[in-house]
């Protein structure tokens, strides 16, 4: 039973990272204002949101299953306050940090109408911190790091996000950018 929980904990962590990666890519696409092939813009926005929520759900399972694991030796405080863990405190702490950031990002996104566009936007930028922190946690804490499949997985995710970032920073990233006058605000 303990073995099953351990496997579930690891598996959900990997799936969560994969889904977060997809959500980051869709978020960047969303910001560009472009549709995804035949998927209209508002659908890109909705899929971006739903994939992120699904990733959050997998993350929750990841946390709960590992809480019951004897090897990880997690205490409740480790879910909230980073770098206090008993085993591998630094790498575990990165995971805790990613969870904290994720909570802030998801809550402000769901309450966008309440907190306003400025707060939403400022907090949403933290995604660019959360995603690499989560990736580092998976590499430093994961037990599958030596495995070829994991290396391929981590490399694919990294290349995809870096490529999306390069596009994000390029001129003409935003639809109509090349025909618009820069706005003062």
């Amino acid at each position, binding site marked *: 039973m303990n073995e099953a929980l351990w496997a579930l904990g690891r598996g959900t962590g990997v799936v969560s990272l994969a889904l977060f990666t997809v959500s980051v890519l869709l978020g960047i696409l969303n910001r560009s204002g472009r549709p995804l092939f035949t998927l209209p813009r508002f659908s890109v926005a909705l899929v971006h949101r739903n994939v992120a929520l699904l990733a959050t759900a997998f993350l929750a399972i990841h946390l709960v299953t590992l809480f019951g694991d004897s090897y990880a030796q997690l205490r409740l405080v480790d879910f909230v306050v980073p770098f206090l863990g008993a085993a591998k405190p630094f790498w575990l702490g990165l995971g805790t940090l990613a969870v904290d950031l994720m909570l802030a990002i998801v809550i402000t996104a769901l309450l966008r109408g309440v907190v306003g566009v400025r707060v939403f936007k400022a907090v949403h930028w933290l995604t660019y911190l959360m995603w690499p922190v989560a990736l580092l946690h998976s590499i430093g804490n994961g037990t599958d790091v030596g495995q070829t499949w994991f290396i391929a997985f981590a490399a694919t995710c990294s290349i995809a996000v870096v490529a999306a970032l390069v596009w994000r920073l390029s001129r003409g990233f935003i639809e109509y950018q090349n*025909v*618009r*006058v820069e*706005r*003062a*605000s």
Partner: protein
Amino acid sequence: MSSTADTWLFPAVQAPVGTARLTAAPAADYATHQSTFGPLPAHADSAALLAALRDSGLEGRGGAGFPAWRKLAAVPARERARRRRVVVIGNAAEGEPLSQKDATLLLRSPHLVIDGLLTVAGALGAHSVYLYAQASVIESATRALAERADASAIELREAADTFISGEASAVVNALAGRAPIPQDRTVRLTESGLGGRPTLLHNVETLAHIALIARFGAAWFRSVGTTGDPGTRLVTVGSDGHPSRVLEVAGGSRIGDVLRFTGVDTGSLSAVLVGGYHGAWLPAYALEARLDRADLAGFGANPGAGILMGLGERRCPVAVAAAVASYLAGETAGQCGPCVNGLPAMAAVLGRLATGDRDPGLPGEVRRLAAIVTGRGSCNHPDGTARFVLSTLTVFADDVTAHLNGHCRKDHR
């Protein structure tokens, strides 16, 4: 201060006769003001003031020309409902480069403006009172406010030096310490304006007329001018080679008469720009039109803030209009996409037409862009700019054709 004491100190004063009303006082000081117009009567309640303004037919002199009583009528109900006291603002931002009448009024008759502010503020039991004026009149306004004891509550603020600084929500933003640019509104300022309070903003000339209506009544106000445009109005009149002058004229005066009075040879004009850069052209054949809503409606113009700018027949109207459109494009607040992108695009196409591009599609493209920007901003800057540009294409259709044929021989300086 008690008004009975004032009445006792100053004998009854005759109401001004003729068209010199706002300009009746020979000097700007308070003593001359009081001896010319008499004391400001005890504050009327808001219902009495509202009735007097409605009977007078006074229209706002800031440009939009809404009946002055309407704003007043919009406030008291809200005020009662929310128990929030009103903010009253006198607006002399006068960002329009062709207009000088608000500055002139504050230099010549600042106490009428102050009287108007106090009359409205008193009738509404205002929470705070502001005078928002351009830099050139701050000194004179400060002096006037210091001359009298009843004006200590009026807060004088310097206006931003931009074309759109006088837009109502831009004024409110500036007074609130924010950037002096317009704001999107789904509720009126009379419901929620400065600090969330019901806010009543009047042009300073409107306030000066209110000060006189409070003294001499609605019937006196209507004794000059036409039924369509009662009372007098300040106009800024100029043309090529003639420096602009500010005059007080009877409402509904003939535009040609006003121009000739300032020495302009109307025979040498191809058109007159009525209402400034957001206004419209009145072609030479129509110069005997009256300066009132009915006569000007056909040309898309209105008396507005009283600007008359003659264009000499030697000047190329297309080149003049392109320069104005380019200036207006640069005066966008930079907030609204259609204005930020549309005005420079429209000005650029008009500029191509002015500088000799003979592409026959240019006028149509100007019209298309004008239609796209109209009504798609948080203030009327795109609308006013489009109105001016469309008026140019209509009134100067022959000059546009001459440009397309490469035949324009007019002065392009």
